[in-house]
């Protein structure tokens, strides 16, 4: 069923079934592509930092660009207090970016088009940021739910709204990445299907669309990784610097 546009998202097992304490831990194509992404990042950064030349070669230049890009992003949005969290945000950005980009290759699998992957990433960020907030400020961290300058009558209502707004962070963070990736890849597949079904006569128009969409998708893949990382920085900023 190559014509089904959703077929590209199916997860299937590779190799033997592994069950530990009743939980299915088999190696799937999703795990395979996560391993591929992670090892591509490692290889790329290893090659980029192997020879530290003063005049960098191409790989080193790109690796340094990624480094300074993330460093600048953290500094601009979360300030100098967020410097210790650079390794985490850098790995997060690189992982999401490489998962998105490797998903753009034909016959590959896009890990980030599954909500469970993005939700786990977002929940991890959410819980980590909450813990950081409480560790830095103690119970004073709860004051982010109480905005200043609100009349006392409205305070309970506003507090509930603020709590809902806070809890909606991981949902919006994960849904955004997942929906962008899934919608884009489905659209590519649908236009690809049009090319086949319209044949040599009418297939040129959707083919052109497919090419344009591929370009757009590469932009979206980068943009979503960037948005994911920058929102992590913004949440971190809220936790580090109370009452911004």
């Amino acid at each position: 069923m190559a014509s089904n546009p959703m077929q590209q998202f199916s997860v299937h097992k590779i190799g033997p079934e592994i069950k530990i304490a009743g939980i299915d831990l088999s190696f799937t194509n999703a795990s395979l592509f996560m391993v591929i992404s992670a090892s591509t990042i490692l290889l790329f950064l290893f090659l980029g930092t192997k020879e530290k030349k003063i005049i960098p070669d191409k790989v080193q230049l790109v690796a340094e660009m990624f480094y300074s890009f993330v460093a600048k992003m953290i500094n601009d949005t979360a300030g100098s207090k967020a410097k210790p969290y650079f390794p985490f945000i850098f790995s997060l950005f690189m992982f999401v970016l490489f998962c998105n980009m490797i998903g753009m290759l034909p016959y590959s699998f896009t890990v980030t088009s599954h909500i469970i992957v993005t939700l786990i990433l977002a929940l991890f960020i959410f819980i980590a940021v909450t813990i950081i907030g409480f560790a830095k400020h103690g119970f004073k961290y709860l004051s982010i739910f109480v905005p200043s300058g609100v009349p006392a009558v409205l305070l309970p209502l506003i507090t509930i709204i603020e709590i809902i707004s806070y809890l909606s962070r991981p949902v919006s963070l994960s849904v955004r990445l997942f929906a962008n990736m899934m919608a884009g890849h489905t659209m590519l597949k649908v236009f690809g299907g049009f090319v086949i079904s319209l044949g040599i006569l009418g297939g040129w128009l959707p083919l052109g669309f497919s090419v344009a969409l591929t370009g757009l998708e590469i932009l979206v893949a980068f943009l979503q990784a960037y948005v994911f990382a920058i929102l992590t920085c913004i949440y971190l900023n809220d936790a580090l610097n109370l009452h911004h």
Partner: protein
Amino acid sequence: MTIPEEFKTRLKIAKSKIKGQVLSDSEKRGSFMGSAFKLGTELVAAVAVGTIIGFILDTWFDTKPWLIIIFFFLGAAAGLLNVIRTANRMQKED
């Protein structure tokens, strides 16, 4: 290692070039689409979270369907708050 004077001026010129750089049309459109999508998910996510909280509290206190209704509207308010905040942040960036 001292940086030669000539390199310093070249760096300065390059930096000022980066600052004045304007995004091309397609890049702008892409980022607009991104920000539109960002606002949409912010709104929907808060409504969804509010409704889920209402549903859970309803089953706890056995008050169906009142809390789900109240929390739906609270969620919508939280969503609007999210949208306003995100829009403010975007304005600041520009």
